[in-house]
């Protein structure tokens, strides 16, 4: 009843092909962007409710946004191009360490340049490890990406120049200076991350609706048929690997610079890869909204598992909470695959669908 298509006629193809063809969606997204970019910082400045301290920004908003960006990167590869990857964490790591090295070794490089170059380095690595995908498919490819994961884990740990010969192996990010503005307060880092997340989401939404995105999806759905209509599988798969790794690298640089500030190789281990894969599955394969929903869900779940017993005054050890979170993730993955293989994004679209047909019950 609040959400109707009736009476909204689209009389040209441009309107029909718009990102949000339905007016209510456009209003909703505008409101959401306004809230994120303006209202949240204002509430923080005014010290109102949960927005007053730094906790919300440091512990929830910043990590969730960066993980959403990373999930968009992984989704390009797994959800849109159908190439499974268990090495997403490693490509984030490449971005993080590339950004660190550029910042340390190239004085005067602007931050945006550092981030873009870091993404570029990750993209090159992604293409290299994507080459096997031209010969092998599906599960075999999963093992190939696992090779990337373990190889780069080792590089971060053992190659001295990667960490600039820091004895402990732990490195720290330089100050975040964007066009002379230093983003050191959590709310400022939040705005930086939010801007990048919005830009990535918009750009990828454009790509997947265009020719490149259709080539990826065609390769995913039936690679032989795609080749028969003239799509070169080499091109489609390698562009997907490049774009995916670029975004993962960018997200890795953000994770290191804007979230962790100082980090060890473990931050980009295979656990990170699984976390991203879970975000993509639970959020929804081949959906950009799903990346944000999935990231929020996966990030908040451990906090809830830890907090609920505390509210109920049931003592629970940190170990037990960690184990139960692990098992809960597993159960959620299974439930998602069995009952809603398209993830939260599908739940979201079903809700919209029902609203549109209300009060008709189907």
């Amino acid at each position: 009843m609040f959400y109707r298509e009736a009476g909204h006629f689209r009389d040209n193809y441009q309107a029909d092909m718009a990102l949000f063809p339905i007016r209510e969606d456009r209003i909703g997204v505008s409101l959401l962007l306004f809230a994120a970019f303006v209202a949240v910082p204002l509430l923080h400045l005014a010290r109102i409710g949960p927005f007053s301290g730094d906790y919300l920004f440091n512990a929830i908003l910043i990590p969730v946004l960066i993980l959403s960006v990373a999930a968009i990167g992984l989704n390009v590869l797994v959800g849109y191009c159908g190439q499974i990857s268990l090495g997403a964490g490693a490509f984030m790591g490449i971005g993080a360490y590339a950004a660190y090295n550029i910042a340390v070794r190239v004085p005067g490089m602007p931050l945006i340049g550092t981030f873009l170059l870091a993404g570029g380095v990750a993209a090159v690595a992604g293409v290299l490890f994507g080459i096997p995908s031209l010969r092998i498919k599906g599960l075999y490819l999963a093992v190939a990406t696992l090779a990337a994961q373990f190889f780069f884990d080792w590089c971060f740990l053992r190659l001295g120049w990667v960490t600039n010969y820091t004895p402990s192996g732990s490195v720290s990010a330089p100050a975040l200076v964007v066009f002379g503005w230093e983003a050191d307060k959590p709310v400022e880092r939040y705005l930086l991350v939010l801007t990048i997340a919005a830009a990535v989401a918009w750009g990828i939404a454009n790509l997947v609706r265009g020719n490149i995105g259709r080539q990826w999806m065609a390769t995913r759905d039936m690679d032989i048929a795609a080749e028969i209509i003239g799509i070169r599988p080499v091109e489609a798969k390698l562009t997907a690997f490049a774009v995916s790794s670029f975004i993962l690298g960018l997200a890795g640089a953000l994770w290191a610079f804007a979230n962790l500030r100082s980090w060890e190789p473990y931050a980009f281990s295979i656990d990170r890869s699984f976390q991203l894969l879970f975000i993509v599955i639970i959020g929804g394969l081949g959906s950009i909204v799903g990346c944000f929903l999935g990231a929020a869900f996966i990030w908040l779940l451990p906090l809830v598992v830890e907090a609920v017993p505390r509210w109920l005054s049931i003592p629970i050890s940190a170990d037990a909470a960690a184990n139960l979170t692990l098992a809960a993730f597993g159960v959620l993955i299974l439930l998602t695959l069995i009952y809603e293989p398209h993830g939260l994004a599908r739940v979201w679209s079903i809700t919209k669908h029902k609203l549109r047909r209300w009060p008709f019950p189907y």
Partner: protein
Amino acid sequence: MAVFDPVKVAFFVEVLVSGLLSGILYALVALGFVLIFKASGVFNFAQGAMVLVAGLALVRTLNWLEAHLPFWLALLLALSFAGALMTGIAWAVERFVLRKLVNQTALALFMATIGITFVLEGLGQQIFGAQVYKLDIGLPRDNIFALESLFDGGILLNTLDLWSALLAAAIVGALAFFFQWTRTGRALRAVADDHSAAQSVGIPLTRVWFIVWVVAGLVAIAAAAVWGSKVGVQFSLVYVALKALPVIIVGGLTSVPGAILGGLLIGAGEKLAEVYLGPSLGGGIEHWFAYVVALVVLLVRPQGLFGDRIIERI
């Protein structure tokens, strides 16, 4: 042989043999993967978690029972308990996961096994604890020197490794017999060949899946017993099990002999690489060496050394 320094040759043989012995253990874990893949087309990522859970169940019950009962009885009871637990897991997996995902893509099933992995790891550690547990199932573990007539001083071997190798060989033999000569084995091979054809001649798919997961669970107990005796039962068993992935890629996903040979190749290769290439590369290369070997094999021969040839048709 005169050209070679006998001490160096002895050292090389020593490294090679210890590599081959750990390769047998890889093969043992890889067997579990191959069994399930052959019979259900499921690439079972959870095999590593099954090894962990089997090991934890075994070591915890054994340590508890040992205090009250004679050792052999305690071991027997602990093994039966672990066996019952793996059977229960197989039943639950078939009943609550596989049965609901019939006709889904291989990718969805693979991701489901990742979900199973997390459930098993989380619950297993919650129930049985998450420390490192020493496992002693009564295998001897002294060092001996072999081939003393050939090399000066002989080469150093651990009897535990030799016993593990024997155990692994026995299991492989038993599995080969089971597959080749029993009624159930024939049914399993039929299902592996073609699900719907097997169903149409009256082979119950769900029961076959259950059986094959039970067998994989039992293989996991054997792997856990052997690995646990060597390095203790701990979470890192999961990573040992991940090594089985490159092993089956090298050997071919559908081949039991391939799993064995792949295990030996990877085991020997990574030890030799670590000893001879490691120092110049910075050490620790055994963490990725196996995967990179698998990658190279895939590029040259996508179906692995012994796998069935992949034929594309439309």
